[in-house]
Every structure is written in C-alpha cells, then in structure tokens.
C-alpha cells in the first residue's frame, strides 16, 4: 500500500472511530496509531464475515481446482 492510499484510509478509519492516535512520539514527523475497542469489534466481525464467505465457498466447491 502506497503512502497516499495509506493516509486516506487512515483518515476514514479515524473518522469512524476504528483507530486513534496514541499521542506517543519519538520524532515530531512520526505519529503512532492504535486500534480502538470498537475497531477490534469491527475487525472481529469482518474476519467472521470473511470466514463465513470462505466456508460457504468451500462447501459449494467453488474453490475446487483453484491453485494457490
């Protein structure tokens, strides 16, 4: 992911409350972020959604013959 894509996504995640700034810094040009509690819940839900999609795909044999 390039810098432009990264900070656009970060801005939207901040706006949605998924991540927050830590306030800690070792260099004024660097800022650190962490996932919020709400962000963890959304992340868990998204992982569950992807797992369910994968399970459905496996069950229906969509992935048969696919090479990784």
């Amino acid at each position, binding site marked *: 992911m*390039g810098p*432009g894509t*990264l*900070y656009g996504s970060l801005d939207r995640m901040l706006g949605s409350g998924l991540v927050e700034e830590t306030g800690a810094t070792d260099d004024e040009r*660097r800022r650190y972020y962490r996932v919020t509690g709400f962000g963890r819940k959304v992340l868990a839900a998204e992982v569950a959604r992807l797992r369910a999609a994968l399970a459905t795909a496996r069950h229906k044999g969509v992935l048969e013959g696919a090479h990784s």
Partner: protein
Amino acid sequence: MKGLSALLFSFYKRALLLYPARLRQEYGQQILQTFRDARDDRKNGTAGFWLEMYKDLLKSSCMEQMHMLREHVMKQPMFFYALTLGLILTVLGGTATLTLQQMLRREANQPQAEMANFYASEIATGAAPDESIPPGYVDLERNLEPFVVFYNEQGKPEASTGYIDQSIPILPPGVVDYIRSHGSDTFTWEPRTAVRIAVVAQRVTGSHAGIVLAGRSLRLVQRDESILYRIAFFGWLILVVLLIAGAALLNRAQRMRPVVT
C-alpha cells in the same frame, strides 16, 4: 542517479497538491515521511519503486477527491440538487432563448423573400428593372419599410427604392460573386455601422441579367431580441436566487428535524 532521485522526490512533493487540501494539511508531512521510509526499505528496483509510488499517488489522489466530493454532497445534498437543477434549467432556458432568437431573425426575412422572387421573375421575363421596380424612397437609416434594389452583372445599381445618404448602397464584390455563383443568398447586411438590414438576394438571368436584392431594417427585430435577452437574463437570475434560497431553507429544515431513534 542521486540527482534524478532528488528531482523525482521534489516532483512527488509538489504533486501532493493533487490531494484535497484538508488531507494534505493533515497528513502531508506523514505521507512524505512514509515515502522516505519506503524508499530506504525498498525491495524492488529503483524504477519499479518510483513507478509504484507515482501510480499510488495518481490513484489515491483521484479517490480522495471523489471521497471529498461525496462528503460535501452528503453534508449539503440540497445544494447539490439545486446546482444540478439549475444547470439543467440553464441549458433548457438557453436553448429556448436561442430558438426564439432564431425564429425572430427568420421572421425578419419576410416579405423580402417574396419581393425578391417577384421582381426577379418580372425582370427575367423581359421587364426593364427601372420599370418593374416602382418609384419610392426608403432611408435605410431611418425607415423600417422594405426596399428593393436591382444590380447589374457587374454589381452596379440600376434601380432602387432604398437609399443611404441619398445614394443607393453598393454590395461588396464578394457578395456579388457569391450570389452570381450560388443563385441566391439570405444574410444580414451592415452597409454602415449600426445600420443592419435583413436581406434576401436573388440572381436574375436573361436580357437584364443581374441581382435583385430586397431588404428591411432589423431595428425592430433587434429591439425584440434585446427584450428577449433581458427577460431570459432576469428569469435566469430569479431562478438562481429561488434555487439558492430554496436549497438553504430545505437544508435548514433538514438540520432542525428531530432524529427518531
């Protein structure tokens, strides 16, 4: 190579202008720092690295501009609808105004078309131009009545009811040549500054070969056009004010509406 790298970095730095101002102010320095980190840690070759970075810059700046536009529209949807409606109505109103103006201008060619046809037929069947064209005096600067002029093959006037400064107006040689080769022409003639005439000219063949020109002052049409433009402009202005006021009121009403959860 170092010089080229510095140049490409400087260009990248300037190209951050492609991002929306808010994002640039908020994250500009961080984007550059991440860029430097990526440059120091790069795994792929120099050309590949720069290509990836510039590709990301172009793609993400377009996406961010789209996001920003969507945010603005979502914040004030009524202004967006009003702007769209305003644009559609401006195009429709402009088209209607131009159509009406063209209709006015076409109407200005009557009765010259019939007059030119009538006198051209008479002269073509052998009538002498000075006998066929009745005596009359129409001052092109002052009078609104239609007039008729007969020019010979060389473009020299032989009979006329139209005058400007007590002389028969002379057709430009290019116009004479055009009518001679094309048979007829309908155009706006300005024999003198601010004197505009709606003209229908027809070529005559036979013993009295030449051109019959029938004209009429465009003063009344210009006055009607001016009224039309004024109505269109003030109508458009009122429409813009109403749309802005309507959008502002609807936006306010929407903000003040209680949220039911």
